[in-house]
């Protein structure tokens, strides 16, 4: 049976979504995206640099016809700013699939969930397909689902922290309660973190800093690609029961 991955009724081949921030150059970013095999990249909405017209444009390096752009609201600390940003993003090129991220604290970058919930409701009513960055709180995740979110994206740990999944139990509970795509967003540090997320039953992971700031971003992009595939296969294969005692792998019969 083919293992298919859908977000908002659109099928994607890769379960790895990558961010396009923090790279040394656009060229490096585009190459890392290619090597990661990602079909979706997150992008930010910012003012055009009017004084420097020669500044390269992201769209010149990553073709939005080949790779799905997922506009985000990074840097927004209230619902009003987030809505404004995503309405502008839609205007740039008709994007309806968006990533909502309303932050509440400048130091830990945790999501402000009350504003996030309000924004999800408004955006869904306006026809947006909203993938929502959220805390790893099962109750909030349920409320987002009821408000029209098209994907639940709990953090593994604070954005850019590289700590990996801090609360596996909560992720498992969220997995058990929702049929929506569950994508770990933020806080992964190395490829094995992505494999763990997939083994917990997540549908995908979103990675930016762990690839962009690795000593070798291209190699790390490939490592994440493989880890997501391996983790998914492992999850689908059905792991063995855990035991605190040893069980010999070789038969006892015929021991000399």
């Amino acid at each position, binding site marked *: 049976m083919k293992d298919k991955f859908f977000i908002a009724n659109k099928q994607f081949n890769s379960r790895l979504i990558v961010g*396009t921030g923090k790279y040394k150059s656009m060229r490096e970013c585009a190459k890392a995206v290619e090597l990661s095999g990602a079909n979706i990249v997150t*992008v930010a*909405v910012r*003012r055009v640099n009017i004084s420097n017209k020669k500044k390269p444009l992201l769209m010149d390096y990553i073709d939005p016809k080949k790779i799905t752009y997922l506009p985000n609201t990074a840097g927004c600390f209230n619902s009003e700013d987030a809505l*404004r940003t995503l309405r502008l*993003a839609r*205007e740039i090129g008709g994007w309806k699939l968006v990533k909502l991220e309303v932050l509440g604290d400048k130091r830990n970058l945790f999501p402000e969930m009350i504003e996030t919930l309000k924004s999800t409701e408004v955006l869904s009513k306006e026809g947006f397909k909203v993938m929502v960055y959220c805390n790893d709180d099962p109750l909030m995740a349920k409320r987002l689902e009821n408000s029209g979110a098209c994907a639940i994206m709990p953090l593994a740990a604070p954005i850019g922290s590289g700590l990996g999944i801090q609360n596996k139990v909560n992720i498992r509970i969220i997995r058990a309660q929702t049929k929506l795509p569950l994508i770990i967003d933020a806080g992964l540090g190395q490829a094995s973190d992505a494999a763990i997320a997939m083994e917990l039953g997540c549908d995908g992971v979103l990675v930016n800093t762990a690839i962009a700031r690795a000593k070798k971003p291209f190699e790390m992009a490939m490592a994440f690609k493989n880890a997501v595939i391996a983790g998914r296969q492992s999850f689908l294969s059905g792991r063995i029961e855990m035991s605190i005692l040893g069980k010999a792998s070789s038969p006892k019969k015929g021991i000399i």
Partner: protein
Amino acid sequence: MRKIKKIKIKLNGKVKLINEHYKIQNLLRDVKVPIKKVAIELNKEILDKKKLDKIKLKKNDKIEIVHFIGGG
């Protein structure tokens, strides 16, 4: 010769002097922005890109031109 009157507007947060009776289209041409790759907001209202030649700029108008950049 009659001097063209200038008015003050704010473009992406910076004060800019433009000719009176300027339309959004004229301004975008001046700053050489690829219209297909941006979104434009006038006083917090998103503009329909098909109507840029019809909207005249007024004193103290606030224009924001945004595009996609790398982000996580």
